[in-house]
């Protein structure tokens, strides 16, 4: 049984009465226990919104508009209040992009840990400050921070250290699923590399299920086993990371890969993606990438392609699906 399963999930932002922005559109996904999955796309493609929807963190003006999210076999899409809190107790956690600024500036780090342990205490749990200190210190050590950090305030820590504290806080209740939403975007390259390595090691050691959300395909391919590429609110490709790097199916994924080059190479050809994503407040007809796609055909402008299986993964592209089918026919 999948740990997390989403069916036909739609998320709508309603900033004003009558105005609807379809940020996540008809997303289906399945995460097995212990998988490390990446979610990639440009700003505004709905990747963070999807991460929020999956962990039931959406707040107005955003809301789920249809769709089922089941966690460990239980439908959580309509849970509220105490039952939802129970699920969060050791079900799922999220590390935010602004996580480094999410710490309370007037409280030391020890307080942050104590707060979580107290809020989610089980009956008869030992909550003396000595025990809490030991538990906090162990968590800090798991993210390569010195236990001394417990006595420090957020402003005394660097950005990388603060992000590590956020990760340790997310680990505190040993969740089965952790969503990392752009955990390294505000950090410089060297620190980013180190934080990603910590996440990767923790995931391998504690075998929790993880979703890494990032606009940086380089980071995601580096860390994850499987990558889902999002465009304009839909998942357009889903492939194991190694296969995606070797043979991207969707033209959007191909274009994203073209934005990278090795700075050591003899010749550098750096691509970009012309144009910008569609306005999601308007109804979409056809493939939403059609306007920027180099392979575009007439059918792309009228019919929205479904995710179809193409060898090692799935992709939503008319042209690539046809090519794949033709290839299969030749072989058989």
């Amino acid at each position, binding site marked *: 049984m999948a740990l997390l399963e989403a069916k036909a999930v739609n998320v709508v932002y309603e900033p004003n009465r009558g105005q609807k922005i379809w940020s996540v559109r008809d997303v289906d996904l399945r995460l097995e226990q212990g998988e490390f999955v990446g979610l990639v796309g*440009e*700003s505004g493609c709905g990747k963070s919104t999807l991460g929020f929807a999956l962990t039931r963190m959406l707040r107005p003006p955003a809301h789920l508009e249809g769709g089922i999210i089941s966690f460990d076999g239980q439908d959580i899409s309509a849970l509220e209040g105490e039952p939802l809190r129970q699920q969060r107790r050791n079900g799922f956690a999220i590390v935010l992009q602004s996580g480094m600024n999410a710490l309370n500036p007037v409280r030391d780090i020890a307080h942050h840990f104590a707060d979580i342990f107290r809020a989610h205490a089980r009956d008869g749990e030992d909550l003396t400050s000595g025990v809490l200190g030991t538990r906090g210190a162990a968590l800090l050590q798991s993210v390569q921070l010195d236990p001394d950090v417990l006595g420090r305030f957020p402003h005394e820590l660097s*950005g990388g250290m603060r992000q590590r504290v956020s990760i340790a806080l997310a680990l505190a209740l040993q969740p089965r699923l952790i969503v990392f939403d752009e955990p390294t975007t505000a950090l*410089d*390259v*060297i*620190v*980013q*590399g180190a934080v*990603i390595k910590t996440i990767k090691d923790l995931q391998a050691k504690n075998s929790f299920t993880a979703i890494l959300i990032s*606009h*940086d*395909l*380089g*980071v995601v*391919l*580096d860390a994850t086993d499987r990558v889902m590429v999002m465009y304009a609110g839909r998942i357009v490709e889903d492939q194991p990371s190694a296969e995606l*790097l070797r043979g991207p199916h969707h033209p959007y994924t*191909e*274009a*994203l*890969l*073209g*934005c*990278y*080059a*090795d*700075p*050591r*190479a*003899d*010749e*550098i*050809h*750096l*691509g*970009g*993606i*012309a*144009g*910008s994503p569609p306005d999601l407040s308007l109804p979409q007809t056809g493939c939403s990438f059609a306007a920027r796609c180099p392979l575009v055909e007439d059918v792309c402008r009228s019919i929205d392609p479904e995710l179809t299986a193409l060898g090692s993964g799935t992709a939503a592209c008319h042209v690539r699906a046809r090519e794949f089918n033709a290839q299969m026919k030749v072989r058989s």
Partner: protein
Amino acid sequence: MTASLASSPHQAPAGGLRPSESPSVVPPLVVESVTKTYATRGRHKAPVTAVDDVSFAIAPGAAIALVGASGSGKSTLAKMITGSERPTRGSIRFGDTAVESLRTGGLREYHRRVQMVFQDPYGALNPLHTVAYTVSRPCQNFLGLSAVAARDRVFELLETVGLTPPEQFAAKLPHQLSGGQRQRVVIARALACEPDLIVADEPVSMLDVSMRAGILRLLARLREERGLSLLYITHDLLGARVVTDEILVLNQGRVVERGQTKYVLQHPGDEYTIKLLDAVATPYAAQESPSLT
């Protein structure tokens, strides 16, 4: 230019902007043994040396990359070069001008010739002013153009940076633009007073990867077409490779490695440079020979 770029979809029409009236030679910027120390208060009283004995020069039309991780002194150097901080020791000369001794009037003339492009395109534009207003201010303030002349020039500038049709973009407010488009407005504003040198401090780090290539291409093209000198401050080695021909690697305020960009990146000598190169998250890092489609 050693790196070739794929053809740009944002290519502006040829001759988008007239060159400066007098083809004056850009005075080279010379930074000589510059050191900056900050006194700190509180528990740790030892002064912090942000920049330690750094020297380099930028020739007319050249582009230099200053590369290093956070806290390596890159931005402190930029502040000293643009005149907003003074070096503790050493000197910065721009042609005959000693930058560190400039005061209000001189600094103003200096700012006409040296402009800056900032990291955060979301914070660098006044949210209450249209693009046209933002870009026309330096035309009126520094070049003394009339409002009507400034308006024409704004259109030319917007075309140069690839915001076409300019009539449409001129009327927009910052929140109606994407991050990449905002950064193009910031670049247009920097170009407005016909500077000789542009100091770009991490101009693409806050943009989507898909938008970066366009901005990098724009900077490379402006340099070629207008003979602009460029100081490109970054921790992104790929950007440095595409835009610049010389590189300085800074670590804790000191230059640890310097040379031709391509050569340094292919034959890094310093441990720190190697660390930076290894930290670059490129999907091709694991592959033997990078093959791009």
